């Protein structure tokens, strides 16, 4: 019988940890379904907008409530008439509707999304940005 819930101190750490069947929760090297030590992606704001279109260049910039630090975010782009997610994994010519020249950047409180070359397919694109409360600068350098 495995110990699937651990609450207390182990290896110098105070934590609550819950594990799947067959896995001991006090073993920090094991899988866990919950750990109070862990970080989670917490959604802060969502941008869901049709981008502006000028001579088949696509662009937009949008504000969201500032956090006081640089947050993490995920971007996806869809063609409005096809409703398929293109960015980040699709490319032209494998998908002719896709523009190969998307660029984007995010700072605290504002995000910019744009193409640096004109699209040949025409039509409009929609951008969705999931902005998390997680800091972008909390990482292990490697």
């Amino acid at each position, binding site marked *: 019988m495995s110990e699937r819930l651990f609450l207390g101190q182990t290896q110098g750490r105070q934590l609550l940890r819950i594990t799947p069947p067959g896995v001991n929760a006090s073993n920090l090297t094991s899988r866990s379904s919950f750990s109070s030590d862990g970080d989670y992606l917490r959604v802060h704001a969502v941008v869901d907008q049709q981008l502006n279109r000028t001579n088949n260049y696509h662009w937009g910039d949008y504000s969201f409530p500032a956090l006081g630090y*640089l947050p993490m975010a995920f971007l996806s782009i869809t063609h409005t008439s096809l409703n398929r997610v293109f960015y980040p994994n699709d490319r032209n010519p494998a998908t002719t509707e896709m523009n190969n020249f998307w660029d984007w950047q995010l700072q605290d409180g504002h995000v910019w999304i744009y193409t640096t070359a004109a699209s040949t397919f025409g039509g409009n694109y929609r951008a969705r940005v999931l902005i998390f409360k997680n800091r972008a600068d909390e990482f292990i350098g490697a």
Partner: protein
Amino acid sequence: MADRLYMKDNPPRLITSKPGYNASPSLDYIYKTFDSDWFNGAGIRWMFRVYFSYGGVTRQNRTVMFPYALDHVPKYSWFWGGYNTNAKDATAPFSNFSQQPNKNLPMFNSAWQTAPGGGSSQTPNNSFRVYNDRCEIIDTLVAGVDKFGTLIVYQS
């Protein structure tokens, strides 16, 4: 008043629920905010920023060692880009941005067309493998300039 915390049974199980719904194993998923039987929880164990310096014609293979070995091969996310120390101009032609990035502050972005094993001249990963104690990125295309990517290792 709903009982929004359920923690009992042997083996134990922790369930939390949305306001107005009693936490219980039979509660529909959409009303649960957490259930410890969801084995693929997305708790983050580590986040790495993996840096590739320009190597000329030399491959820049990288092995990222985890702080300690796990007893399983973890789930992960990988993308090129991530935390940048300085922003750049937002330079799309024909655009009229309401404001420009502050180039004195950091910015976050990610590159695209970058599925592991795909790669391009800008994203030179041909092979990407994660083990219980490390991540190996094999560069077969040679990084043209300094590059970095972000690796998120999850708790499951």
